[in-house]
Each structure stands twice: as structure tokens, then as C-alpha cells.
């Protein structure tokens, strides 16, 4: 990870070689800051293998780069994606970070 990709808050970083370089989609989004609403965003790209685990129980987030699909005007080159919202293009039933099915 570089300085520009570091997660905004303290977390335990790691590297998952089993997903590094794999194409993935992220059904993303989150709270709309300053409002009580939520919004959806979709991304597709390549997982770098970098992840962070937030807190206990660990909430795992993967770094998605080489974005081929992203919201129009999205200016960042990468996005952090929660593992449960990541879908591997070639292994759609596999949850990154869990045992292989």
C-alpha cells in the first residue's frame, strides 16, 4: 500500500495472495455524509491482495485497483471494498477471506 491508499483509520493490514490479481466487482456504497440516507455505487477492477481488518470481530476490507467500472467522476484510482460485498468475476461463489467452497 502507498500513502495515498492507506485506510483512513487504524486497522490491521495484511496481504491475501489468493485474491491478488483477481478481477472483482464490488456492490458498494454507504451512508451519505451529513444525511440520514444511503447510496449505492458499483465498482469493478482488480484486487491488489492488500486488505485491512477493522476491530473485533474483524471487519475485512480489500483494496480494488485498476478500476474498469466506477461512478462517473470518481477521481480516486482505488477503492476499499468490504469483503462481503466483493464478488470475484471468475469465482462468484467464493467470499474473499473465507474458506474456498
Amino acid at each position, binding site marked *: 500500500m502507498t500513502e*495515498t*491508499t*492507506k*485506510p*483512513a*483509520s487504524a*486497522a490491521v493490514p495484511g496481504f491475501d495472495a489468493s485474491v491478488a490479481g483477481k478481477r472483482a466487482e*464490488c*456492490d*458498494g*456504497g*454507504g*451512508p*451519505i*455524509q*451529513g*444525511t*440520514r*440516507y*444511503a*447510496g*449505492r*455505487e458499483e*465498482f469493478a477492477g482488480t484486487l491488489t491482495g492488500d486488505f485491512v481488518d*477493522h*476491530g473485533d*470481530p*474483524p*471487519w*475485512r*476490507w480489500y483494496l480494488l485497483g485498476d478500476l474498469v467500472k*466506477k*461512478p*462517473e*467522476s*470518481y*477521481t*480516486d484510482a*482505488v*477503492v*476499499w*471494498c*468490504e*469483503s*462481503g*460485498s466483493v*464478488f470475484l468475476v471468475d469465482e*462468484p461463489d467464493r*467470499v474473499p477471506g473465507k474458506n474456498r467452497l
Partner: protein
Amino acid sequence: MPKNPLHTPFCEMFGIEYPIIAFTHCKDVVVAVTNAGGFSVLGEAMHTPDEISADIKWIRDRIGSKPFGVDLVLPASVPPSGGLAELQSKIPDTHKAYAKMVHEKYDVPAPKGKEALHQWGGLNQEMARKQLEVLLEERVPLLCSGLGNPAFILDAAHARGIKVFGLIGKTRQAKREIEAGIDGIIAQGFDAAGHTGEMGTFSIVPEVVAIAEGRPVIAAGGVTTGRHLAAALCLGAAGVWTGTLWLASRESDVDMIVKEKLIAANAEDTDFSKCISGMTMRVLKCPWTNEWKKPEAPAPLAAPYQMLLSSPYIQGANDNRRADLMTEAAGQGVSFIKSMKPARQIMIDVVDEALTTFENLTGGEE
């Protein structure tokens, strides 16, 4: 004795009378719907842990041991960007100019206080984590994830006797959460207010029912009448998730001006657009959404930049109660919101109409 079509597995799960879930940001609506035999889920996405704790205590003082839920919005993706000042510096001049044009054309007043958006929590996971801790500590009967997969918190929630439901917009999201052990799925269709799914409610509900392995599936999106409830149950749903239905209720703390706009609105008066937040939202049409649909308008920016642009308009309109400018998240079922009724009456009307619908379909009892 004929089977009561409104007594569903969701009612069994929580020991309630009617499979109608009121999703609301208003505690008074929570209490009214709960005490009328329904189930309420309080949206707490914007509240601090202390506020959430206080809200839960307030509700429990008024509903006793009856079950209720709390909804949080868990982030599913987070950009690696920095603080507020850095984000504001990245907004293109073209977009700032267009926003300024809208303000001048409609004489949009300035917000009266500090913009809520400027109480910046940052785009990270820490706030969600702290909010979840409160729900675990308070052992709320139902934790709903309004967006984002709550799989990581399931064991901790179940250990405390808390059920967890996830709101989804795609069948694959439901499959993922079901495989993780979630207790129920809220299948949200395109008709919904706010962050809708991409599929119609009539399409997503039966798809999710087919893979739910007997778990309750709650139909969301466009539900505002008893006929909608009956239709959802016919699709295999175990209940309905209703939001717009309660916005104009007597108990709702929504501004009276907005209530009147909701009552006057039809489905075509809602816009599905990225122009408010950068993420798709269904809201009542207003000058901001109308201007950003024009061919000459620049493409809305991604979140959070577009929200930084729209925030002064939204808050200025609300703080100054400008009826011509105000908007609210509303689903396409708004067509059937035609008066301000007490929540109990809304519940009675929906239940009566659902039962009448079933009687008409089956020929009723001799």
C-alpha cells in the same frame, strides 16, 4: 377456521400481529406502529452512539417489551480520500458554477446554521463500528443493515439474542448474506425511496424467496396500501418494509410543508438521480433535480463531491422552509399517500384492505 393470511413467519419470529414493518427516522412513529401491532425499525445512520442509546431507552419506555429494530447503514465501499477541505478543493469549477446558477435562479437562501455535512465523520468504518457496539450492548431485538453485508457481526449479534436482517438490491447480495447465516432479507425494489435496487419489487422479491431457504423475505419498494401487502405475500414475502407510507403520518416529524408535498405527489413526481449525493436516490422532484436533468447540466460528480455541492441548497431550503425548493426521499408508492392520518389508522387501513383483497380473491367465507 380459515388461515389468517397476515400471520406470517415474520409475525411468528417476533410475536407480532401484522407483518408490516415501518422504517422511520421518527421515534414517535416507532412507538405508534409498534403499539398498533406492527413492527418498527428506527433509522439511526446519522446518529452518534450516545444518541442511539438514548433513542433506544426512550422507545423502550413507551413500548415495554414489544420488539423493534434499529437500522444502520454499513459502508460497503470507501474511497481512500482525505478530509473535507481536500475534498472541496477537488470539485471542478464547472460544477461550482452550475450550482451557483441554480442558487441564483431560484433565490436559494443560505443555511441558517453550520451545514450538517460539515460535521464530517470521515469516510471510514469507525463510526459504523461504534454504532454497532451500542446495538449489541442494548440487545435490540432486530439489527437491520440498510446497506452493506453484516456477515462479520452475525456471531456477536446472535450470541446476544439479536436477529439480523440485511436490505439488498440484488439477488447475489441476498445469496451472500443467506450463506453467511443472516436471519432475514429485505428485498428492495426500484420503486423504493432513497437508495433503490435496480430490479423491480415484483422481480426481486420472488427471486430472493426462491433462495431464502425458508427465511423471512420482506418486500420493500412501493408498498403503501393493503393491496401492495397482499401482493407481496402472494409473491412469497413474509412481510413488507414501508417507509414513504409513514412520512405524512400525524406522528411523523417530517416538516408539514413536505407532508403536503407528499400528499400532492404521484409516482411521476419522484426523480431517480445522482444529482443530490453522487449516488442514485429516489426523491421528490425539486428545482435542484430538475436543473441537473437538463442537457446543459454537467454530469453529477461522484460521492461525496456532489453532496458537497448540493448540501447548501438542501439545507438552505429546509432551514428556511422554502416550499418551492424542499425535497424528501420518497418511493413511487407516494401516489397513495393522500392524507395525514395517525399511524394507528394507517395500520388499520392497510390491514383491512389486505384482508378484503384476499377475501375478494378467494370468494370470502360463506
